[in-house]
C-alpha cells in the first residue's frame, strides 16, 4: 500500500525568507508525485507534479519541488516567501493505477510580514 507523510503540521516563516514544506512517500514502483494548495473556502489547486526526468520541478507561483528517490522525499520549496503563500499544502502520490491518489494530512504554512 502507498502512503504519504507530511511530518510538520505547521510551518512558520518570515516574509522574504526561503520556505520548505516536507513530504515523504512510500510506494511500490515509480512514484508520480503532486503538490496541491488549499486556500480558505476554496478547492484544492494544483501546484506542480513530478512524473519523470529532472528531479527539480518548477510549478505555479514560484514554487518548486525536489524529488529525491533515495530519501523517498518530494519537498516543496520557494526561495522567497510571500504573505499570500499562507495556506494549507497537500502532497499526493498516484501510483496505484488510474486516478487513485493518496494524500498527506497537509501542512499549514504561515508567512508573517
Amino acid at each position, binding site marked *: 500500500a502507498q502512503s*504519504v507523510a507530511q511530518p510538520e503540521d505547521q510551518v512558520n516563516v518570515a516574509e522574504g525568507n526561503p520556505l520548505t514544506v516536507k513530504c515523504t512517500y512510500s510506494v511500490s514502483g515509480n512514484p*508520480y508525485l*503532486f503538490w*496541491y494548495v488549499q486556500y480558505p*473556502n*476554496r*478547492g*484544492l*489547486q*494544483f501546484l506542480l*507534479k513530478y*512524473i519523470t526526468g529532472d528531479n527539480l520541478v518548477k510549478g505555479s507561483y514560484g514554487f518548486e519541488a525536489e524529488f529525491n528517490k533515495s530519501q523517498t522525499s518530494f519537498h516543496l520549496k520557494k526561495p522567497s516567501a510571500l504573505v499570500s503563500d499562507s495556506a494549507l499544502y*497537500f502532497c*499526493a502520490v*498516484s*501510483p*496505484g*493505477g*488510474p*486516478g*487513485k*491518489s*493518496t*494524500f*498527506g*494530512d*497537509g501542512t499549514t504554512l504561515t508567512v508573517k510580514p
Partner: protein
Amino acid sequence: GAGVSQSPRYKVAKRGQDVALRCDPISGHVSLFWYQQALGQGPEFLTYFQNEAQLDKSGLPSDRFFAERPEGSVSTLKIQRTQQEDSAVYLCASSLVSGRLYEQYFGPGTRLTVT
C-alpha cells in the same frame, strides 16, 4: 473557463436521512473523482469514473454510499441513511485524461453535517 462546481455547498441532514451531492466537472474532462475530507486530514479517495464507467469504488466506506455518472459528465454521490461519522467535506475533482499522470482540478466541496 468554468471550473469544477459542486452543489449544495453546505448540507445539514438528520441522522437517517438520504442525501445527494452533485458535481459538475470541467467540460470535456474524462476522469472524475470523489474524495472525503475529514477535519484536519487530507482527502481520502472514494471512487473514480472514466467517462460513465466507474472503474474504482474501493474507497466507498459502506454500501450506504453510491456514486453515478450516467452520461459521462455530471456525477452524483448519494449517501443513504446518513450517520454522524459521514460528516465531512466531500470533494469532487476532474482531470482531462485518464491515468495517473495528470493533475486533478478540484471543486470547492460540499460540507455535510449529520445531526
